[in-house]
């Protein structure tokens, strides 16, 4: 029911929304909860386990009951708190966790079985027969349990992530937070002020009192205007700080567009990472419920929430309200309601000595022991001494005290401290370095106290930041002592709920204690108390008190669980913003990329690079036809392929050769200028790290080539070796991978092709040599090396000339019967020649395994040499590189067995790493690691691949299948 003249909603702007298929009207500034209450809707959901009818309990993000689905055009968001979701024109929402309609939920039958469904029911009941769990019990339970459901479609909504850096992060914009932000901002500090709500003010708005003689909202507006005018302040509304992490890093979720109709350019949410050396936690306090019998009916709400709905939204939560509270603050609920013309039937205060100043019936020393009303509260039963009586009421406002919102202070595993005075946990200073709680979050419950504490916290922060605070006056405000007495539960016949969301009652906690789950951690897991979406914000302390009572201990002795991030749920989509689809990883494109795509080449991802797989020609139906043609083209004419993805490291200095001797197994200091050598690099544990060629460009200048896969790894390794072991050597190196575009030109006509475009012919450049060259007026580098087994060259030009050179090379090659070749052909060519890739040197392979132990120089130390000599890393027991030849298809990943032996793990002889169909040799070829393989050439081995259903006899042979003498590449 809407009350005229109350609240800060904009009554000139209506918002039409839907809930469970019915149209309703709210105003701009309403939450779904306030708008539903204004429309007289009390039943909004069903509980998790018993499917009890539930209403709205709170007015904040701690809401355990009023969880709904928000339905967009293409997506559906479950478990949205009606108390947080703002209404807008076209908002479509639906209740959840029901079978049938909300009023006639078929699963409400669970409630009748409640006596059997207490804590531990599932553990005890669904144990036998064992096979039933997976097939019957679990699917049935999962269907019945759970809350909202997802649409099952991709979330196509836009999300953002952002960083912010500040001197001071202020969490919460209530009295303490606003005061802190104001003091720090006026002193010139960079301030980020974050608050969950769309409006600043916190409880100042919900309580509606006065500050400095003017309405609190006026003071809030003045402070907000000043803060917004300052360039050093960033105000983040609708932003929940969800986690405190190491070294002053905080996570926060901003609801950017969830309060508006969806637009493609409007992010739904933004996940912030905020870095601030100091932070002030001014998150206020959460009111706690009382566990009295049948305390879960729609209409039973927190007293502070009833005030919020009245003062912030202009909504009366009921027509005839009763108050059940042991706090003085709840009396304000009665006063505010009466002043607004709402009938207050009675105040029930369990404190026998509390004051009686209100003009409504007050029952001291009394308790609520029962309630009635199937889909909403109709009446309560009150016990006072020996007598009990019933009161007609449609809304009961309860308050059992306040818990400081200290969650962030325990995110680094520090448990809060119990305060007897407050009957609540309070933050431990220093629990999160740099984070200081102030105001109600620190147990200071009066408005005046909060304002003063906020100011003091800001002054302390400024002092730590080396800034001087100016004088800022604290406005006069309410300064009443925190009048309260802890009341946790009320004895009676009915069930008394602690955790509404997970349907955990006082009986469940007592039963856990009786069954020896007396530790708070055990109790939590046994009863699931605190494990619902609200993470125990409403129930933790109450459950702890009941457990303490049941086990005959005090609360501090019983202990408490800690809170972990996030404070409220964070959507994965927000944390992963930008990482969907192509945003998942950066993309690296070759200079030849467009030219390759122009020719219809499908791209293969190799690391972050995109490389052409093959270049299809008209009439070719499969990739294999193209691949076979490209292989033949290289073997018979000339092929061109882009090899720029290989890592290139430019190494210079007097000690460059000495350094290469240390990181390679073989020697490079003796390499003549103008020559290229194949090098093998080990990890310090003796396994092969990488291989590649290095060229000596000058006396003190080398160019190292790494594989594509290990380019980054090798750079990191070189940096480590140099900085850790030879920091004083005369040596510098840098990655030049992206500075050069490099193309392999291979085949019998490679020389003729290059001679047609180089300014000087290649001449007598020997195999494994390099030289400076010029092409089209551009300085180039020419290397005579081969990964195909043919006479081959690699020509490198500065990257900006790459595409032009590639197109030119292709045009010339095509006049000679040649053309481009892709990764598939490149792979076939190298397997035919027995060259290895990272499919072979996969991290568990030694130089011995690949037959290169002679490349480990005996004359010098190198990284990995000592470890490679350890027993077990060499000898006949090792699986050694061999070639395989077969007449039918074989597969990489297949395992090898002796013919006649069972295909079992015990008989495993090795495995296959690479295979291809060789058009050159007309056979299937493979590279494999086989136990004592080098001694077994000529043997027949059985290749088995269960996944691809391959069982094939293969001939074991030398891995070099084609031109073993290397005459072609040395031609």
């Amino acid at each position, binding site marked *: 029911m809407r009350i005229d003249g109350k609240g800060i909603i904009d009554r000139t702007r209506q918002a039409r929304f839907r809930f469970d298929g019915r149209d309703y009207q709210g105003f701009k500034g309403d939450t779904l909860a306030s708008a539903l209450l204004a429309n007289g809707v009390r039943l909004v959901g069903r509980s998790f386990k018993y499917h009890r009818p539930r209403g709205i309990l709170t007015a904040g993000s701690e809401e355990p009951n009023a969880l709904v689905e928000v339905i967009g055009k293409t997506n559906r968001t479950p478990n949205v708190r009606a108390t947080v979701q703002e209404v807008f024109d076209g908002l479509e929402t639906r209740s959840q966790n029901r079978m049938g309609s909300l009023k006639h939920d078929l699963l409400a039958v669970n409630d009748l079985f409640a006596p059997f469904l207490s804590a531990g029911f599932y553990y005890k009941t669904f144990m036998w027969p064992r096979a039933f769990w997976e097939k019957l019990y679990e699917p049935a339970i999962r269907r019945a349990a759970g809350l909202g459901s997802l649409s099952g479609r991709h979330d196509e909504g836009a999300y953002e992530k952002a960083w912010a850096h500040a001197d001071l992060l202020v969490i919460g914009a209530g009295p303490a937070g606003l005061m802190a932000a104001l003091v720090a901002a006026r002193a010139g500090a960079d301030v980020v002020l974050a608050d969950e709500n769309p409006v600043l003010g916190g409880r100042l708005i919900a309580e509606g009192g006065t500050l400095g003689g003017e309405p609190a909202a006026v003071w809030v507006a003045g402070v907000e205007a000043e803060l917004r005018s300052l360039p050093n302040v960033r105000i983040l509304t609708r932003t929940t700080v969800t986690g405190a992490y*190491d070294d002053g890093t905080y996570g926060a979720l901003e609801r950017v567009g969830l309060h508006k109709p969806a637009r493609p350019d409007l992010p739904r949410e933004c996940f912030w*990472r905020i870095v601030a050396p100091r932070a002030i936690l001014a998150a206020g306090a959460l009111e706690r419920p009382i566990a009295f019998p049948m305390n879960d009916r729609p209409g039973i709400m927190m007293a502070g929430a009833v005030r919020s709905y009245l003062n912030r939204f202009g909504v009366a939560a009921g027509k005839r309200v009763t108050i059940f509270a042991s706090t003085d603050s709840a009396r304000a609920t009665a006063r505010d309601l009466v002043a607004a013309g709402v009938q207050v039937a009675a105040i029930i205060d369990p404190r026998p000595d509390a004051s009686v100043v209100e003009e409504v019936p007050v029952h001291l020393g009394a308790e609520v022991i029962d309630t009635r009303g199937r889909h909403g509260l109709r009446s309560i039963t009150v016990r006072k001494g020996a007598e009990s009586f019933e009161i007609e009421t449609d809304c009961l406002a309860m308050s059992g005290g306040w818990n400081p919102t200290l969650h962030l202070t325990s995110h680094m595993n520090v448990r809060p401290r119990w305060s007897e005075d407050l009957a609540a946990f309070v933050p431990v200073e220093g629990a999160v370095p740099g984070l200081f709680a102030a105001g109600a979050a620190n147990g200071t419950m009066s408005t005046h106290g909060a304002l003063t504490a906020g100011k003091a916290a800001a002054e302390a922060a400024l002092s730590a930041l080396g800034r001087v605070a100016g004088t800022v006056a604290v406005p006069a405000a309410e300064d009443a002592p925190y009048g309260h007495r802890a009341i946790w539960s009320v004895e009676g016949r009915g069930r008394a709920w602690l955790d509404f969301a997970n349907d955990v009652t006082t009986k469940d906690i007592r039963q856990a204690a009786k069954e020896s789950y007396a530790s708070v951690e055990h109790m939590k897991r046994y009863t699931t108390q605190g494990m619902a979406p609200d993470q125990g914000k409403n129930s933790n302390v109450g459950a702890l008190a009941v457990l303490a009572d049941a086990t005959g201990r005090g609360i501090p002795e019983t202990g408490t669980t800690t809170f972990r991030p996030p404070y409220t749920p964070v959507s994965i989509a927000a944390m992963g913003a930008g990482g969907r689809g192509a945003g998942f990883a950066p993309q690296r494109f070759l200079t030849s990329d467009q030219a390759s795509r122009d020719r219809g080449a499908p791209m293969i991802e190799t690391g972050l690079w995109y490389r052409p797989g093959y270049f299809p020609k008209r009439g070719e139906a499969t990739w294999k036809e193209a691949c076979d043609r490209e292989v033949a083209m290289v073997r018979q004419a000339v092929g061109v392929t882009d090899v720029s993805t290989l890592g290139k490291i430019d190494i210079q200095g007097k000690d460059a050769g000495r350094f290469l001797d240390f990181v390679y197994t073989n020697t490079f200091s003796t390499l003549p200028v103008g020559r290229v050598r194949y090098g093998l690099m080990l990890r*310090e544990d003796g396994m092969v790290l990488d291989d590649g060629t290095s060229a000596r460009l000058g006396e003190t200048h080398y160019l190292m080539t790494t594989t594509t896969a290990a380019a980054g790894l090798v*750079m990191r390794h070189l*940096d*480590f070796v140099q900085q*850790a*072991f030879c920091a004083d050597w005369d040596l510098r190196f840098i990655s030049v991978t992206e500075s050069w575009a490099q193309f392999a030109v291979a085949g019998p006509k490679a020389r003729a092709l290059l001679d047609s475009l180089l300014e000087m012919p290649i001449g007598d450049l020997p195999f494994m040599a390099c030289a400076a060259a010029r092409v089209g007026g551009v300085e180039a580098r020419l290397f005579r090396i081969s990964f195909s087994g043919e006479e081959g060259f690699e020509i490198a030009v500065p990257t900006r000339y790459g595409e032009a050179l590639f197109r030119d090379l292709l045009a010339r090659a095509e006049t000679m019967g040649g053309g481009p070749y892709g990764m598939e052909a490149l792979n076939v060519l190298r397997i035919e020649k027995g060259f290895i890739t990272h499919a072979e040197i996969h991290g568990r392979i030694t130089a011995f395994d690949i037959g290169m132990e002679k490349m480990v120089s005996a004359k010098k130390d190198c990284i990995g*040499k*000592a470890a490679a000599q350890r027993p077990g890393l060499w000898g006949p027991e090792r699986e050694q590189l061999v070639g395989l030849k077969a007449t039918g298809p074989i597969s990489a990943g297949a395992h090898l067995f002796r013919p006649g032996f069972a295909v079992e793990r015990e008989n495993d002889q090795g495995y296959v790493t690479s295979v291809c169909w060789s058009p050159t040799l007309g056979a299937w070829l493979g590279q494999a690691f086989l136990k004592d393989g080098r001694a077994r050439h000529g043997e027949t081995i059985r290749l088995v691949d269960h996944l691809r259903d391959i069982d094939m006899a293969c001939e074991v042979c030398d891995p070099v299948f084609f031109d073993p003498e290397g005459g072609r590449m040395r031609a």
Partner: protein
Amino acid sequence: MRLTCPLCGPRDRREFYYYGAEDYLNRPDAGAPGSAWDDYLHNRDNPAGMTRDLWYHEQGCAQWLIVTRNTVTHAVTAVDLVAGRQGAAT
């Protein structure tokens, strides 16, 4: 988590690559017994408290760093250059 690189200043941990304990810096002589190499390569303490480990400022200055930190409190007390330590030179 943030690390203060001696060259670049305070940076988020996402800029750094973690390697392992600083033991990797104490490379045995080439002729050291196998046990020394086993210790160097594989055997590590798992301290609850102060530890020193190696990080690489991969998205920054490419310097290897020795980070002194507390595994219990997560406090980082020092970040030093590997290249600047005693023994980095031969």
